[in-house]
């Protein structure tokens, strides 16, 4: 048996199974009365079925959502399923509005991550600008799924900007490090530098070296090399934006469809049509939470010029998403 034992840890580690078991037990203890009435086997069956079906992240705390790659991609997918109708209507939303949407699904979702996403979409400019659903969600996916990697790349990028040679970046823990003296630049030069970015090839080398030693998930090397080969100089956020729009990267994560199919949702369309028909019959029946009503108001304010059909769809969509989240919660 010993030859199996060495890889047991790997096997368990890769799938994060112990994490899920631990969380299942914690949840069970926190909600003893509720969960134990049908027996613990049934409870665990439900828990793991929901993990398998990616329904487990809804309304969970941020730490849980970011704990495993599977959780992250599940959350992204849930966000997409709940809110893709927004994309259909062509709404543009601000960072804070997107954050509100996220908080409906995850109560303690931090604003910083949404802001970082905004910086990707808006290229670090005017973070108050509005964003389309499509731009946002792909950037959000990148930011959430590869959070640690992006932080590391940003550090590398900033070092490169500051003029440190690539070698110093590759071995950050070494104390005796040769540093090039920071390039003495004037204000204009510095700004220009930041705008233009760094040598793409240098960045590519550093990123490659990072991937060698990096423990967390990162986008595939081939896609990154592809992007960095396109230009001579590249700035950080345009690199990220290209990554977010890269089909291969998206496919590897596996949470979202391609851009062309992002807004296609025939089932939901059918459901919405049904709901619209119902609402037309009994207008008072769907009493949603105040947050959702607030959302409806917000959306109406944001784009006053829309035809009736779209607006109705929006109302129903909010209800629809509520329906969906309600049913997923069960």
């Amino acid at each position: 048996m010993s030859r199996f034992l060495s890889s047991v840890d790997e096997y368990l580690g890769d799938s994060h199974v112990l994490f899920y078991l631990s969380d299942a037990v914690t949840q069970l203890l926190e909600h003893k009365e509720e969960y134990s009435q049908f027996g613990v086997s049934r409870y665990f069956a439900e828990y793991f079925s929901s993990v398998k079906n990616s329904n487990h992240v809804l309304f969970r705390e941020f730490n849980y959502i970011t704990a495993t790659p599977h959780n992250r991609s599940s959350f992204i997918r849930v966000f997409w399923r709940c809110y893709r109708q927004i994309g259909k209507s062509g709404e543009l939303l601000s960072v804070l509005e997107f954050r509100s949407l996220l908080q409906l699904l995850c109560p303690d979702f931090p604003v910083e991550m949404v802001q970082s996403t905004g910086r990707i979409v808006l290229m670090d400019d005017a973070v108050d600008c509005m964003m389309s659903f499509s731009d946002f969600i792909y950037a959000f996916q990148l930011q959430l799924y590869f959070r640690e990697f992006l932080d590391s790349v940003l550090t590398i990028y900033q070092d490169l900007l500051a003029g440190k040679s690539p070698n110093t970046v590759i071995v950050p823990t070494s104390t005796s490090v040769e540093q090039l003296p920071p390039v003495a630049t004037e204000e204009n030069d510095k700004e220009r530098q930041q705008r233009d970015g760094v040598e793409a090839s240098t960045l590519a080398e550093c990123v490659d070296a990072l991937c060698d030693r990096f423990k967390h998930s990162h986008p595939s090397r081939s896609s990154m090399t592809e992007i960095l080969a396109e230009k001579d100089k590249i700035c950080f956020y345009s690199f990220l934006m290209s990554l977010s729009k890269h089909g291969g990267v998206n496919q590897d994560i596996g949470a979202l469809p391609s851009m062309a199919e992002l807004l296609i949702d025939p089932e939901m369309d059918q459901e919405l049509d049904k709901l619209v028909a119902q609402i037309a019959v009994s207008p008072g029946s769907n009493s949603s939470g105040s947050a959702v009503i607030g959302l409806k108001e917000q959306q109406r304010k944001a784009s006053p010029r829309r035809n009736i059909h779209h607006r109705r769809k929006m109302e129903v969509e909010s209800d629809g998403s509520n329906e969906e989240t309600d049913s997923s919660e069960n």
Partner: protein
Amino acid sequence: MADKEKRRSGVAAPEMPEMPEGKATKSDSDREFLSQAGVGELLRGAILKMVEARSDDPIGFLADHFCHLASMSDRGAGTAGCGDGDQLSNGPPSAGAREQQHLNRALWHLRLAHHSQRSAFSNNVRVAYDLLNLTGPGKHPGETPEGQEGSCTESPTGGGGGGEGEGGGVRGSLYTQTLQCLCSEGGVPASTSAPLLRRLHCHDHEAVPYDVFRHGVLTCAVFSDYIRQAQRLYAEVCCPDEGPASRALCLAVLGTLKEALETSQGCDATCCVNANTKANVCLEANVKAIRYLKASAKISPHKLAAAMSGAQARGPGGNMDAKEFENAAADLFITRVKVVS
């Protein structure tokens, strides 16, 4: 329990750093709740199963595992915790229903790992055996040792074959049912498996010890694979458009099969010469035979082709259909199975 406690304390600690007394009582009551609900055992069993099965999708495996357990306990009375108002009486259910449940559960265990995954398979056989052992009133410890002297199994020493637990063994009818289900689930039609089952058969009233049970289960599992291979072999030999394959061709192929098995039989013979051989040797030889078969089917296509082209030139006319081929192949296998007497 230790690992579960470790996990739990690892999780509990960050939640309540400021309340030492509160923490103590909360984790005590938590601990009590968990041990009452049997969570530790449940999880330990699940992890063990999962590690043995090494499924590609561990989460999916766990989901299935727990769903299965849940449906078992939903259906069964007398198992812990499910007072969910299923129409089961508070008294014990009929012996037949309970037996059926046990059988289903045992079969589920046997399906988990392929017989080539030796340790996982053995473990599952053990679990299945223990499950079936618990069933029913018909356990006669006294009958065990002398009743089952298959020539492949060692004569159990005085205390019965190596610690079976409560009963003397699995009831013969249950054993036979298990084998039948295994064969049919493995894709072997009843008519093909009937001769095999006759050889492995134990009388309904007899108590089947672990070794015999394992031998039977393993043989059926291997046989199912063998038949599937034979079916595939026939498909290779025969083009479906042209109707059944020529008899000569089939006979040639079967001849090669037979040779392969006989080669392995030679190994059997030398193995069995050693006195006081353990049961496992014969079982292993069975498995080896199948391995040889697979190997020969795969790695000597030219031998097969030579036989086939030779056969096409001469040999009996007429065709052999899939069924006949399958039966003939099965026959080759079955003649090598020792009879359980």
